């Protein structure tokens, strides 16, 4: 047996069914007894227009001719179903919540056929889609935000503007703030264990043991420890966060210094030699160390982990469907913006700490300029043809992890920056 007989109409289906179904979907039907009854009932309820439809009851693929009417109720439109095949059958009423209302995709060019979901009672197929939309609107349909965006350009453009503003605000202020708060819950031990791993990996790769004389190292370490002692408590953003600040020396990575989470600061031989070459006092190096202490105290590494996590997940979900390039690009650019803001914060910290220790920040500014200048020279040598000094293009500043060096150096020389509170 290939199919069970339809449960409702046992026996041969009446030819009336077939005739009614054979009629094209549109157009007025001949006034059969049921239709006239339905029509008069509708008239009694305030002239509800009826649409011809096919009802599939979920028990068989055989359609049953019905008339569908919509009524306005306080909860929204409700659907009335008049079966035409069973004379004298009561119309079935479905409240707004019992119906899965199909979304309108296109107001100007409606789809050829719309299906209304009656949940466990099957579904209703309607051919007169434009009339259906009109009836729904007349019955007080309240479309959701998605459908309003779908069918109305002003709503779409409005949400577009809101999305642009909202996204900018969220990534400009929301994420950094959340990262700052979340970092409070990250234990210090985790930071130190991560730092150890990272440093071990770098020691295997780009870094070599320092070649500075032990005396020189001890000298700088003493200055560092003295500075760390003077770290003012009012600059402490994280109460109760007391990492052990230590200084280490390595060779490699050019003239550089970096801070690891949990209090370890690493200085390369390159930067110490660069300071000596330019005849700058040790205060320049101490300034750089103050900047790195700022990174540690503000827990920038940990915050960056959280920020990158939010960025990758949030932007991946939001823009992943557009394209991987767009979502990764947005994530990288925003990550760089965070990195620049961290650098500025660390600069502010350095300025404040150096003032507290009664040390000048100007030498540090000169050191930064000198290092940047050296790198420019190197590039120029490779270029062979010097000429005009390359102005940093605004696009390049977006692609940089550090703020513009010249401005930073100026701020440090003046010992104060407009963005520091």
């Amino acid at each position, binding site marked *: 047996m290939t199919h069970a007989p339809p449960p409702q109409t046992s026996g041969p289906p009446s030819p009336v069914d077939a005739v009614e*179904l054979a009629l094209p979907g549109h157009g007025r039907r001949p006034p059969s007894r049921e239709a006239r009854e339905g029509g008069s009932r509708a008239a009694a309820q305030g002239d509800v227009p009826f649409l011809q439809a096919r009802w599939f009851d*979920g028990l068989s693929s055989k359609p049953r001719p019905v008339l569908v009417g919509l009524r306005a109720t306080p909860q929204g439109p409700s659907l009335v179903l008049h079966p035409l095949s069973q004379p004298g059958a009561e119309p079935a009423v479905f409240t707004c919540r019992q119906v*899965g209302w199909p979304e309108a995709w296109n107001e100007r060019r409606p789809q050829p056929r719309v299906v209304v979901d009656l949940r466990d009672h099957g*579904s209703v197929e309607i051919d007169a889609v434009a009339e259906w939309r009109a009836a729904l609107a007349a019955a007080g349909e309240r479309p959701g935000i998605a459908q309003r965006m779908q069918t109305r350009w002003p709503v779409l453009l409005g949400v577009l503007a809101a999305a642009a503003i909202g996204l900018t605000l969220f990534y400009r202020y929301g994420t950094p703030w959340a990262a700052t708060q979340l970092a409070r819950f990250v234990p210090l031990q985790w930071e130190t264990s991560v730092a150890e791993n990272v440093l071990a990996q770098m020691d295997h790769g780009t870094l070599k043991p320092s070649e500075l004389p032990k005396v020189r190292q001890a000298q700088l370490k003493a200055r560092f420890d003295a500075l760390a002692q003077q770290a003012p408590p009012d600059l402490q953003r994280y109460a109760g966060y007391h990492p052990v600040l230590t200084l280490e020396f390595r060779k490699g990575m050019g003239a550089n210094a970096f801070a690891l989470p949990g209090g370890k600061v690493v200085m390369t031989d390159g930067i110490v030699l660069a300071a000596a070459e330019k005849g700058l006092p040790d205060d320049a190096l101490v300034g750089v160390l103050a900047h790195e202490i700022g990174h540690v105290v503000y827990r920038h590494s940990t915050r960056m982990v959280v920020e990158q996590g939010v960025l990758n997940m*949030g932007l991946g979900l939001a823009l992943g469907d557009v*394209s991987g*390039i767009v979502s990764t690009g947005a994530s990288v650019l925003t990550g760089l913006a965070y990195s620049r803001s961290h650098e500025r914060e660390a600069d502010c910290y350095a300025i404040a700490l150096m003032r507290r220790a009664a040390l000048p920040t100007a030498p540090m500014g000169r050191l930064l300029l000198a290092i940047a200048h050296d790198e420019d020279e190197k590039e120029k040598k*490779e270029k062979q043809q010097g000429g005009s000094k390359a102005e940093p293009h605004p696009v390049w500043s977006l692609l940089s992890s550090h703020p513009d060096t010249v401005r930073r150096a100026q701020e440090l020389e003046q010992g104060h920056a407009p963005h520091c509170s």
Partner: protein
Amino acid sequence: MDAQTSPAPAGARAHKVRSSFVSQDIESYPLRFTGSGGEYFRVWIVNVLLSIVTLGLYTPWARRRTAQYFYGQTLVAGSPLEFTAQQRRMVMGFVLLMLITLAYNIAANTGQDTAVGLLLLAGAVLSPYIWASAMRFRLGATRWRGLRLQFTASWKEVYTASWPVFALALVWFGVFYGMQMLSPELAQVLESAGEEGAKPAPPRFTPAMGGLLALGLVLTVLCIIRLEYNYKGLLVLRAQVGAERGRWKPVYMDFVKVWLATLLVFVLTLIVFALAAALLVGGTSALLPQLKQMGLFIVLLILFAAVFGLLLIVAATAPARAYREARMFRLVWDNVGVSQVARFKCHLRPGAYVWLRIKNMLLTLVTLGLYRPFARVSEYRMKLESVTLHVKGSVDQVAGVLVKQQQGGLGDALADAVGLDLIG
């Protein structure tokens, strides 16, 4: 409206066919897609915007809208499909999936190797379960002429069909130990890998080892094909519309042939790419003297080349992937049916599909992804409209069995994560 779209009068013939003994006329219904790229672009951009505004939380609603759009515009014998999944279930599945992802990320980032290992192992063992619940969800949420589709495979059947997964694990276990047997040096390297600083000489690579590795690879591919065959077959055989079950004719060798042809297409693509690269390198080496003066631009060029190389890998495999997809689609849709009531015919041309995919890929790249909805619609349309449904008797004869609204929803969200697309 053209003749294809008025199957409603088919009901007129409902009384004709009540028994399969009567000689039957066979009615053909080409499947139709009535949507358009521009319309879907609107659906898609709304989803993207709402996802942005809600920081990604709109995803389950977006998935439902997308499915409803495609289903609602897909006419099977004149009646649109319906996607009737409960939104609440989909949201719950999505939230659960996000929590699992979060737990995994936290475990991975904080170096809790045991937890990560357990999560991965659970994922591997549960993958047949996840696949089956995804299929149950997908079919259970699909309705046509009021009848729910169903996926009725039992868990035992699903795990039995998954035997290639476990065979795969055995194969690589065997290769791993076979390698150590063949080459004692390799075993030493593996042992000392954990120790700091120990760097013994790299082991020699013998032909026997190469042979073993090749055997392992061939067996792997055969297992993967078998898995695909088993799953597709199970899906069709245990799919039900109303009381009618699916019919499945392809055999394993059909699948192997498709894969072999795909390999051929891939090799041909590589040859074309190699020729193009040779021409391009010849061209740039002529430019080289000029390049030397550009200094900084060299760095940019290298960066660009790295990005370009990545794209090249995607591009080089794209024709083969599209070809396999088209061949597989035609093989399946040309050889399945619904019990004795209906069968499908498919006339998809793999060449045309490959060109469409390449064109779509380029346009999507050029428009930074904005062309994606148009691409999706054109591919869906080409595949869908290549299929014709032949019904013996009438489409009115399928009787339903009472099916409650499906429970899952998690299956859908998890399916999303493992890359099973709802549309397609």
